[in-house]
């Protein structure tokens, strides 16, 4: 069952990615990307990362992509769009590079990453049993990674100020 679902959402993710890259209309690209993100959220659920799945949808699909959609519509790029896909050799080069990247990354990830450690699944399951899905992430986040966590808040503050400054016509 979950294997089947995995294949379904994986193909949706790849299809969404392909559509995002190939569609000429920015809105279409965006919707395909939302599809990919949604599929990724589903894959996260299948991989046992419920909390990540939820914030994937909330943050990416619900906030970031809405922002993109907003900008596209604000700049009216969706209606009278000009095709922006580069021609001929670039497409070949692009997808050849993509294939090469994928192949090399696959080699890296599968030969090095997967065999290093095992049993994380069980560890996570135990943590979720004890602390539930959110607590299992929250505890290490606020205990071991407190400083990076606080730093991200600084980063967000900086980003807010930067965005406001950039987007205002007159400061």
């Amino acid at each position: 069952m979950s294997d089947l679902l995995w294949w379904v959402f994986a193909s949706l993710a790849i299809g969404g990615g392909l559509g995002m890259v190939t569609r000429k209309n920015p809105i279409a690209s965006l919707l395909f990307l939302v599809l990919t993100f949604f599929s990724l959220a589903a894959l996260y659920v299948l991989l046992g990362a419920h909390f990540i799945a939820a914030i994937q949808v909330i943050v990416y699909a619900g906030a970031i992509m809405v922002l993109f959609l907003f900008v596209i519509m604000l700049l009216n790029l969706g209606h009278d769009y000009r095709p922006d896909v580069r021609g001929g050799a670039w497409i070949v080069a692009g997808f050849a590079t993509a294939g090469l990247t994928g192949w090399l990354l696959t080699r890296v990830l599968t030969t090095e990453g997967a065999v290093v450690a095992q049993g994380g699944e069980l560890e996570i399951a135990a943590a979720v049993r004890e602390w539930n899905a959110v607590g299992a992430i929250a505890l290490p986040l606020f205990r071991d990674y407190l400083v990076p966590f606080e730093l991200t808040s600084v980063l967000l503050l900086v980003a807010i100020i930067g965005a406001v400054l950039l987007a205002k016509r007159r400061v």
Partner: protein
Amino acid sequence: MEHAGFRPVLLGLIVLLPLAGFVINGAVALLAPARKRIVTWAGPGVLALAFALALVNFFGMLGVELEQAIVRDYWSWMPVGNLEVAAALQLDQLSMLMTLIVTGVSFVIHVYSVGYMGDDPGYARYFAYLNLFVFFMLVLVLGANFPVMFVGWEGVGLCSYLLIGFWFRDREKADAGKKAFIVNRIGDLGFMVAMLLLFTNLGSLDFEEVFRAAPATLAYGGALVTTITLFLFLGATGKSAQIPLYIWLPDAMAGPTPVSALIHAATMVTAGVYMVARTGVLFALAPVSMIVVAGIGALTALFAATIGLAQYDIKKVLAYSTVSQLGYMFLAVGVGAFGTGMFHLMTHAFFKALLFRGSGAVIHAVHGAFHHTHKEWDPQDMRNMGGLRHYLPLTWIVMWIGTLAISGVWPFAGFFSKDEIIWQAAARAVGPFAPWFTAFWAMAIAAAVLTAFYMTRLMIMTFHGEIRCGAAECTHLHEVPAVMSLPLVVLAGLSTVGGWVNMPHAIAELPVLGWLPSAEWIHAWLEPAVRPAEAILGPRLGALNEAAPLGGGEAFWAAVAFALAVVVIGVGSSVVLRWKYRPALESLEPVGLKKVLYRKWYVDEAYETLIVRPVVATSRALWRLVDEALIDNVLVNGAGYTSRAFGWAGSRLQTGQLNTYAFAVVLGALILLGFMLL
């Protein structure tokens, strides 16, 4: 180092006062050139203060037997490696004397300048330069080591250049300034080389250190010390206008006359003499150099005097006379009589300043007259003068005093100093170089005779005989204002009595003169300063040849010189009075020997042909071939073209398209990844 009985009073302030004057006047010149009143008070005022300070120090020093120079370290100037040069001033008898001369004469000339330059638009600038000059001159004479002295040395050169070219809109004057500057550079190179040699061999540049270490380190008469002293002397010839570098000084008369009086007669040009006296220890160690110095001095004295015979420009005559007198000084220091050289330096400062300013008064008057009637005549040419004594009686009198002084007529200042030089040249004619000294003695006497003659000619042409400047102009001739005449009178007085401070024993002991200051006071005063040099010279020289070379003592030869001078003046006057001159514009070129002398022995032309033209031609060739073709085109532009070619090739990759860059980045990452994996 402090001396028990004497502390210098505000030594640094003596130097700083003229600098303050420069700052004030410079500011005025830049910001408000019309505010002449400030300049009038600030310019001479700082010099008056400096002179007063120098006097205070002098009188403080007078009663004290100062064995060693007092050195004041202000700050460490060049601490490089094992070289430690301090910004330090040094006060001893030699520099005290020089300081007095410099501040005193400068003060008088500043006062004179107030009248002379009063109408000039560059009044403030002029005083700024003049103050700056005094500052550097004081640094030169008070510096406690070679670098500090060199700063003053270069500084006075700079000010000389600025002041010669003061009226820089006149091409000729600007060129004269450049000539002075460039010729001086040749000499300065010698100074620097000597300095570097001293540092490499003695490891120090402080006067004290060098003079203490030199007798032990440098072999007497050795090649090294001879080289060093000859290079030093090269510097001196540049600064003090000796053969072969004297050519700039006559041209330097393009500057304002007070400048000629101050810089090019009284102070700066004597820096070379001072330097030789200061480094007397080194020269004493190099007898060959001494002969060279004395020989060049004697030759210059005679040579310049011959040129002076045939010049018509009143300032040119005085300029060559200065060169000639400087030659006397070098003769003196060259034979080892440092005190005598300094003595002549002092008296010369008095009477040459007087003569220059007298000529300045004449030029001022004639120029004013020509200016009034819009006559385009040269106000400096003596052929356009004549008979001026009726219009400028005071100038006439003081000029005659100066003439008598320079000619060596007793009892004027020049008599004592010049006769002492002549006698010293003769008296020191002992040892292996005796014949040389005798020859120098003879040349000095010849030069003295010529001096008396050309000065007489100058006076007669200017003040006596018929009036050649035109009747209309005569009504506009005026005597100088008080601010100018007062310095003249002061200097005239000094020219008269200035020599008495160092009366030879032979004369001072005459019963009639018993009331005069102690005999040979200058020698006594300078004795501690020249003692190290004398200590080297003395044993080798042995007893002086009191009777040399033709018998008779000092007094006898003094009497002979006096008689000669009087005879020359008397005969010369009557001869020259009989010559007829026409105004410069109508005159013909002189012929024969006179033309050679008028053309100054064709030295400038020879330099032009032998040195300047080849140098210019070589420079042009180097410019075209090496600089433009090789360096500019092949190396510089070639490098540029090459890198531009590479850059052009590289810029093809820079499309400016983000995607391309991203593609390149990804490819690079992939290649790295591939290397890591495969």
